[in-house]
């Protein structure tokens, strides 16, 4: 039964991927991508990666889908040149043979993976008690491989700086995106009034249970960012000016708290990003709590994009 389900899932996601790559209309391709992301979530559940499934649903399909939809709509509005002419047949055949060779090579690799598979699961199981968190993924993210997570939080801020720095000189420091035109009686406005309290609660819950069960700051922050974006899209509120000091402090607060606690580990526990005995869980929760608002802001602002209007306009 499970086997048949898996084969059907694999066939569906491959079918959707083919559809997305060859669809004529870019919007159809993006719709295919979002559906693909949702089905991929089921694949992650089948692969026993519930935390990954939550992240994929929230970010892989959700946020990336909205980002691409927004870009497609903007590019259609602005008087852009018609789609460049398709690549010549020679290039397409060459691309197809290169891709087929890469896929074939990878399939050979899949079948020649070592058996029994190397795994760090026993090492994690043996040491998880020290961190006092119950979810092994959280233990890896914030204790065993905390450096990765720290660098990731910083990479997100760098990406946002990159997006912002594309602003034209005249609108530097202004607000991203176009001014939303809300319809006070529209369905979107209704949803933006009803959903955020629920979304906030679910986001906070997913964040809080992350210590012991699947969930955590990334998934929670994505939900909170989605609620913020919903309010902005409905025109109930406007995007912030990017030169607001409070906004910038909020953006770097999480990474800075992470760095501070990491450096403090040198004095209290003898190495960077180490936690003193008995303080692991409170410190992990503190870092997650500090990262949550920063991640929410970064994810939301990455989606809103480059500043495009100053207040005088």
């Amino acid at each position: 039964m499970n086997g048949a389900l898996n084969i059907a899932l694999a066939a569906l996601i491959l079918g959707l991927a083919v559809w997305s790559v060859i669809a004529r209309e870019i919007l159809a391709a993006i719709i295919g991508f979002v559906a693909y992301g949702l089905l991929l979530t089921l694949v992650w559940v089948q692969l026993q990666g519930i935390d990954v499934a939550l992240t994929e649903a929230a970010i892989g399909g959700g946020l990336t889908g909205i980002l691409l939809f927004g870009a497609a709509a903007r590019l259609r509005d602005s008087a852009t040149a018609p789609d460049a002419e398709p690549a010549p047949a020679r290039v397409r055949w060459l691309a197809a043979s290169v891709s087929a060779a890469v896929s074939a090579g990878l399939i050979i690799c899949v079948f020649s993976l070592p058996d029994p598979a190397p795994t760090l699961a026993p090492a994690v199981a043996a040491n998880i008690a020290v961190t006092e968190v119950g979810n092994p993924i959280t233990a890896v993210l914030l204790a065993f491989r905390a450096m990765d997570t720290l660098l990731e939080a910083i990479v997100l801020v760098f990406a946002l700086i990159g997006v912002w720095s594309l602003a034209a000189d005249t609108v530097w420091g202004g607000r991203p995106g176009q001014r939303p035109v809300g319809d006070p009686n529209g369905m979107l406005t209704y949803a933006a009034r009803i959903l955020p309290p629920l979304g906030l609660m679910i986001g906070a819950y997913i964040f809080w249970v992350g210590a012991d069960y699947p969930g955590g700051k990334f998934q929670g922050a994505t939900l909170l960012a989605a609620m913020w974006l919903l309010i902005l899209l409905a025109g109930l509120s406007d995007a912030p000016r990017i030169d607001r000091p409070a906004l910038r402090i909020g953006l770097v607060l999480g990474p800075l708290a992470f760095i501070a606690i990491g450096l403090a580990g040198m004095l209290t526990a003898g190495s960077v990003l180490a936690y003193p005995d008995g303080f692991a869980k409170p410190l992990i929760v503190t870092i997650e709590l500090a990262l949550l608002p920063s991640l929410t802001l970064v994810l939301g602002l990455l989606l809103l994009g480059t500043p495009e209007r100053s207040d005088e306009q």
Partner: protein
Amino acid sequence: MSAATLFGICAALLIGLGLYGLIASPNPLRKILAFNFVGSGVFLLLGSIARRGAAAGMGGDPVPQALLITGIVVAFSATALAVALLLRLAAVTGSATLAEVQPAQVHEHADGA
């Protein structure tokens, strides 16, 4: 065939498919989309390897799974940066294409951001 092997093959095909789209699609937004398929294929491959490492009562090796979460978030930030670059390109040159743009044309639209 185990789920790990099945989805491993699926991941290999997704990477090939994305690679084809990346090379063959002339539209930059479609290249970004295809690039996301390559990325998600790589994630799926790593996920199927993580599944094979199930041990100690865990359904998969938690270390690659945690790296996957990091990877998915970073992939999103890279996509956001790519989309921002594309929108800026369209604003400055008036067309979202990777074809050669005449320098004069760029100058003409440079203030219309």
